[in-house]
């Protein structure tokens, strides 16, 4: 089922004008912000397909930058997000991507420090009604929807990693909703993305942090309240 629950049909609450181009874009931006772990200093945003053709009219640019500022889809600051980004030291540039992409509403984000350090790349698609899929992180092909709290684990491809992760979840009494795994090459770098039911408990992160093959672990949780709600 592409649409999993009643609120993927009725909802989200959002600022207009387009659930695909505005709300979906905000969620893609916010997913990247969460995984980056803090506000990036620099963001290159590459729009493909319909996003590239109409992003200004739909506020896709403002929505995706709003997401990078951790705004939810209904945040009234979205129409002014480009100004807020400038004020908070986030330097943004937009490009129109070329080539064939899988979905007409595709955006690729490259986040980094001002000098280009700690780079994160993420590609998301907006599938309608504000629903999204993240299909790429740092060059790995993955699949996640943002509906569930999600663990993004980058690690070395070695035996026992998945068993370790699933055991950590099981020990904390947490159920896996969906999971996707990709690697660059055998024994090279790999990524495991785990969408879970319920919240990501502190104990899970502690256990995963101790894993030998770990490179990094991040969380994407779009159900979290925006940090600076009082500024609305």
């Amino acid at each position, binding site marked *: 089922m592409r649409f999993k629950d009643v609120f993927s*049909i009725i909802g989200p609450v959002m600022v207009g*004008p387009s659930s695909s181009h505005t709300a979906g874009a905000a969620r893609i931006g916010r997913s990247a912000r969460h995984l980056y772990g803090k506000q990036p200093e620099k963001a290159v945003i590459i729009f493909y397909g319909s996003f590239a053709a109409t992003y200004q009219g739909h506020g896709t640019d403002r929505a995706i930058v709003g997401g990078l500022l951790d705004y939810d889809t209904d945040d009234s600051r979205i129409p002014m997000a480009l100004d807020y980004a400038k004020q908070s030291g986030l330097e943004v540039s937009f490009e129109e991507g070329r080539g064939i992409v899988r979905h007409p509403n595709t955006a690729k984000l490259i986040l980094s420090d001002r000098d280009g350090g700690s780079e994160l790349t993420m590609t998301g698609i907006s599938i309608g009604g504000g629903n999204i899929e993240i299909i790429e992180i740092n060059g790995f092909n993955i699949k996640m929807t943002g509906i569930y709290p999600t663990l993004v684990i980058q690690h070395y491809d070695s035996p026992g990693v998945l068993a370790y992760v699933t055991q950590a979840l099981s020990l904390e009494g947490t159920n896996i909703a969906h999971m996707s795994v990709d690697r660059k090459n055998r024994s090279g770098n790999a990524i495991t993305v785990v969408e879970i039911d319920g919240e990501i408990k502190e104990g899970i992160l502690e256990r995963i942090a101790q894993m030998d093959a770990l490179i990094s672990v991040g969380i994407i949780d779009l159900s979290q309240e925006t940090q600076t709600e009082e500024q609305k």
Partner: protein
Amino acid sequence: MNFSTLNELAALCEAKNMTIGQLMLEEQSRESGRTPEAEFATMAQYYEVMKEAVHKGLNEDTTSPSGLTGLDAQRVVNYGKQSEMNLGGAAGEVMAYALAVSEVNASMGRIVATPTAGSCGVIPGVFVSSQRRFSWTDEHMVYGLFAAGAIGYVIANNSFISGAEGGCQAEIGSAIGMAAGALVELRGGTAAQAVHAVGLALKNTLGLICDPVAGLVEVPCIVRNGFGAVTALAAADMALAGVRSVIPSDEVIQVMMEVGSSMPEKHRETAKGGLAQTPTGRKIMQEL
């Protein structure tokens, strides 16, 4: 969810002696692991946003950033005050409310995607005006939204709800079907009647292309929301009167899928065809 077609949905409601709204709330709660009270509260908040959007669209300046659209809802209301509307008061009001919400959307105001932002006027238009007319409680309306959600869930998973994928029949058509089915239930009709209303409504939008001028969710999207809300009333009335969708509603959904899949790309939200490529449509795009 324990259903994937409208037929299954109606059968489940009958077997459990529940309305579509009650069944959807139960299913949603089971799926999410949250309590029914928590799910109900979320939907109740969404309904508040819909009411606020209607109010805003009827009372504030809704001129869009492009300057192309705005204030049409208020024009309809003023016209209705000055002369007898062809539609009559109730349908005129549903149309004005739907236009209002859709205009708030175009002006980057706060709305609920139902099922999308491009079609966000239909359900609030039908719900908020019908609540006023029939003096229903908010609780009744929230169950109605769960019913609309159940219908949309079936359409979305068996066909599509976005113009980019299936043309405007997928966006506005889905919204009309959802509103029509939910209105049947709100008026006390059976689940089977609600399902007929969905089929009746969807038939009337089959083949509708998505051709937004300059790619914006404004022309013709806003007026299609106004027309859509009126159509939902008509479909609900037919179903409540006992009119059946001779082609079962699940088969109509399949036809929408077939038609949308064979629609050329230029008629699916790309602004490469239809109204967007008329001489005036092209001129507007160049001037923006």
